[in-house]
């Protein structure tokens, strides 16, 4: 990868620390903190900021945890203060509904990631069509993209384009992919999608590949890149946005953001907010290595503490059982079943 080959390319950055970062904060970010972070990123020229519960619309639940405020409160507070940045939301069909999307729009959200597992795009037609009807910037977001091959991703992306998506994302929810995996999937999408349909990449840093994977995506034709300042996100975090912006600047890729302002936001605002250092450690590395949904990290640590089965063992078992995003209930279930097998927990008499 040479600097010259990508020189002059324009890339649209999309920050995730106020959505994916909610996972890393157990959904506990206050409205004031959101406004402070968003204002700093808006000032640094980041064009899109995602703001909701970590699981998006409808995310407030026993399954995914309750945030201290409703999505509406967060979105309204942030959107009303943005000078240039657009506020986006996440909508996973089966969890979020069109009613909630309407409500987010009414509060000022103007962009949406409509997310499905990478083989289930056909659960999104009504939501994508509805987002378009509202006039939102609409993305089809194929999660856990390592679990479908490039031809399969292309087919699923084409469905989302047909439903009306402006952009289709390859989403490495497990932080499992390597640059060649990313390139093959982005290229396969580029081959089948209309030229005006944009392609995006959303990485997780569980194998430390967030930046390299994002550059690989751009080489293969992606134009939108998700990341989060200071990497505040699930697992080992998202692609750290300020680091990515610095790499882009070195390579001559135009992101339009002010690098030093992003660095300041990372160091002065976001790192002090962290409950734990978001980094590659034994458990987050296990996610990336075993191909497990990044959000499972903290849930598995809690289940490990409670039932006495190591978090790494639980994560590997979840990977083996092919559990996907949204199946957080299966973490406690799996931990209990493993604890019974190991003689740590008694069966309820039937």
């Amino acid at each position, binding site marked *: 990868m040479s600097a010259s080959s990508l020189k002059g390319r324009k890339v649209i950055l999309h920050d995730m620390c106020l959505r994916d970062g909610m996972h890393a904060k157990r959904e506990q970010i206050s409205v004031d903190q959101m406004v402070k972070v968003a204002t700093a990123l808006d000032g640094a020229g980041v064009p899109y900021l995602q703001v909701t519960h970590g699981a998006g619309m409808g995310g407030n639940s026993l*399954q995914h945890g309750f945030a201290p405020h409703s999505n509406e409160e967060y979105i309204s507070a942030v959107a009303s203060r943005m000078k240039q940045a657009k506020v986006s939301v996440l909508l996973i069909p089966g969890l979020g509904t069109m009613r909630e999307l309407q409500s987010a729009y009414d509060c000022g959200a103007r962009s949406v990631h409509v997310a499905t597992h990478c083989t289930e795009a056909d659960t999104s037609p009504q939501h994508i069509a509805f987002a378009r009807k509202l006039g939102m910037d609409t993305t089809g977001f194929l999660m856990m993209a390592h679990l479908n091959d490039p031809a399969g991703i292309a087919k699923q992306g084409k469905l989302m384009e047909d439903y009306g998506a402006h952009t289709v994302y390859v989403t490495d929810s497990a932080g499992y992919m390597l640059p060649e995996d990313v390139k093959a999937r982005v290229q396969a999408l580029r081959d089948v999608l209309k030229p005006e349909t944009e392609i995006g990449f959303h990485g997780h840093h569980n194998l430390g590949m967030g930046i390299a994977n994002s550059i690989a995506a751009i080489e293969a034709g992606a134009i939108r890149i998700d990341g989060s300042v200071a990497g505040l996100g699930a697992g080992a975090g998202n692609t750290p946005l300020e680091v990515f912006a610095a790499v882009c600047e070195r390579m001559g890729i135009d992101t339009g953001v002010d690098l030093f302002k992003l660095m300041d936001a990372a160091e002065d605002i976001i790192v002090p907010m962290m409950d734990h250092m978001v980094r590659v450690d034994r458990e987050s590395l296990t996610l990336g290595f075993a191909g497990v949904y990044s959000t499972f990290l903290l849930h598995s640590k809690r289940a490990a503490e409670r039932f006495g089965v190591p978090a790494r063992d639980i994560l590997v078992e979840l990977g083996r059982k092919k559990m996907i995003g949204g*199946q957080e209930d299966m973490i406690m279930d799996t931990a209990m079943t493993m604890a019974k097998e190991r003689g740590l927990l008694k069966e309820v008499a039937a």
Partner: protein
Amino acid sequence: MKKIRCALIGSGNIGTDLIYKIQRSPVLEPVWMVGIDPESEGLARARSMGLKTTAEGVDGLLPHVMEDNIQIAFDATSAYVHAENSRKLNELGVLMIDLTPAAIGPLCVPPVNLREHADKLEMNVNMISCAGQATIPIVNAVSRIQSVGYAEIVASLASKSVGPGTRANLDEFTYTTSNAIEVVGGARKGKALAIINPAEPPLIMRNTIYCLTDEAPDEARITASVLEMIKEVQKYVPGYRLVNGPVFDETPKGHRVSVFMEVAGLGDYLPKYAGNLDIMTAAATRTAEMFAEEILAGKIKLQAMEVA
């Protein structure tokens, strides 16, 4: 023994699986299968299993209702056409079991409220959704012991078991099931989540039920109530199995009871992993049987309805 004669409307997975369930019933007999595509595999299979068929929709069935003495119909089409199907058949005195999300009649979960519907001689009962059938008995098992302010269910379905209708209309599934958790489950507020998992080999249907009780839970009584309810459901779905729980813990939102279930189907027409479809067809059959037993015992008499 005399059996009540039934018609099946809709020749897809659910309609076809229903033939097997109804043929085994001591009180029901499948007589007609109604489709809209003469070439459909479902109609061909129905014919080979000895049913009369029409590819002309419900209108193709109506002239035969009286001569064939059809008293119960199962509708496994879509919410969009159900109301019209129901009106036409109710007019002829046929009781309607609705397996679509239309829900124009009262919601039915057999071990919770079937008796009540049979006593009222309802002419149209709705079976909610697969997730509703799999989880509402458990919500009710908790709420009949202690008041439940909030109940949330998570249904994980094998990708291969989820048809195009459900996929294109996931919001309807969410709304219908959430509402039934309140109306039938007895929670003041209900929420339903669905996950479609494409793993191969396909995963057996899983359901997690969370309830928040107003007061600290009486663990022994709730556990006993849940186990008793599971036995009731197992009478018509033998593969309804407790995997883990009930687990009791304190959360920032209150006293949480969690129950982790698995539903394996009988593997009649659909494979065993498709417990979601099986629990719908089995619950619908159980519902029809209850009405059939009452009709055969002379306790109730179906009558043509005056429809305004």
